[in-house]
């Protein structure tokens, strides 16, 4: 599959269909994101699904793609993308961080093992060009056991888990969707600065709520967490609730706007209004 992708990318670059390709490069035994500009460089291109997403927004508070698009308007960028990469691109485009029209997604599918490791619900992109689709893992599995316990147990569980937090901001920094220039989690009004652990549950509550309609389930936050807090139990639960209440899933359709952001619907949540 790697050779196929290399050949495809070389063709695209030499025929000038696209100007640059954003992917992973191996050099001296290390793999890092790289912007390929010449077809000759593409021999060192690596295609692997085990490396993290390369669209994180920190520390510049912008993704590399939005910086590129701002500096070189009209630049056609090819991006080698897995399922999660593509969802991140779609969601970034919805938030007007990048222009999806100028981005060519070169999609490849992850294998079953990788999908299981990431607990990925959709381990293939919509623009699938290489590899074969494997079925994703149902989202419910991640939070079923937690939601089956009583409220008291859940509170204790989260109190124990979230008290481990060392406020390293790893979850936010690794997140492809956290592009806010002014992060609530840094403001002393909401979180006491210079104090550990952060107040339960305010600190994480901010992120959980902000991610409810944006989370694309790439799992980078949980992988980045040095204290192994099972953050995805809640992000997955909220994602399933968004689907249940609003019929909305982030990262799948570039035309579908987040229901939290718009108030243009005449009579929102008709069935839900009786419940409250």
């Amino acid at each position, binding site marked *: 599959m790697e050779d196929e992708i290399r050949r495809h990318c070389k063709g695209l670059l030499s025929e000038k269909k696209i100007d640059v390709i954003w992917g992973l490069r191996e050099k001296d035994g290390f793999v890092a994101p790289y912007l390929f500009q010449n077809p000759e460089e593409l021999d060192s291109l690596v295609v692997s699904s085990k490396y993290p997403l390369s669209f994180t927004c920190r520390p510049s508070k912008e993704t590399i793609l939005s910086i590129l698009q701002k500096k070189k308007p009209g630049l056609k960028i090819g991006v080698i993308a897995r399922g999660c990469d593509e969802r991140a691109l779609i969601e970034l485009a919805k938030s007007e961080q990048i222009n999806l029209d100028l981005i060519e997604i070169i999609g490849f599918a992850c294998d079953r093992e990788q999908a299981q490791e990431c607990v990925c619900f959709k381990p293939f992109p919509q623009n699938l060009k290489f590899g074969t689709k494997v079925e994703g893992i149902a989202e419910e599995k991640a*939070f079923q056991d*937690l*939601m089956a316990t009583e*409220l*008291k*147990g*859940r*509170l*204790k*569980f*989260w*109190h124990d888990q979230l008290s481990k937090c060392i406020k390293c901001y790893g979850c936010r920094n690794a997140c492809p969707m956290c592009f806010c220039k002014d992060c*609530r989690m840094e403001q002393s009004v*909401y979180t006491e600065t210079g104090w550990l652990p952060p*107040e*339960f*549950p*305010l600190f994480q*509550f*901010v992120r*959980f*709520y902000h991610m*409810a*309609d944006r989370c694309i389930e790439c799992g980078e936050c949980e992988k980045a967490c040095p204290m192994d807090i099972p953050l995805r*139990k*809640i992000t997955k*639960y*909220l994602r399933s*609730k*968004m689907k249940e*209440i*609003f019929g909305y899933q982030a990262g799948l359709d570039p035309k579908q706007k987040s*229901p*939290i952001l718009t*108030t*243009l*619907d005449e*009579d*929102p*949540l008709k069935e*839900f*209004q009786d419940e*409250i």
Partner: protein
Amino acid sequence: MANNFEPQIVGFLCNWCTYVAADLAGVARLQYPPNVRVIRMMCSGAVSPLYIISALKKGADGVFIGGCHIGDCHYQRGNHSTLKRVAIVKPLLEALGIDSRRLRLEWISASEGPQFSKVLAEFVDQIKELGPNPLKGT
């Protein structure tokens, strides 16, 4: 303990509807439980989820949000976002182990003074049943 438990409730009331309704209930001398500490907001849509969790964290046993009926909002669609926000905050509270019945959103218009006292009495009874907020002092 359970019998003499007097809950503390923080009420975020919209300036244009529910706050006026609370005023009306007072003027009409309608009885309602004195457990509610009212905070007047310009719109129920101005109630950030952070206010809700902060109130619960700092010891409130319940949070009440009162706004105009859908379609009557002084700012056209302010209460739409309140509704959508509460719809997401409730499952989030549940997932963290806090009973979502501690948060209540109600549409009460300026002329519904009796409705206001009725709803608050109901809510206070509900919180009394649920007991003190487990988040207090954690």
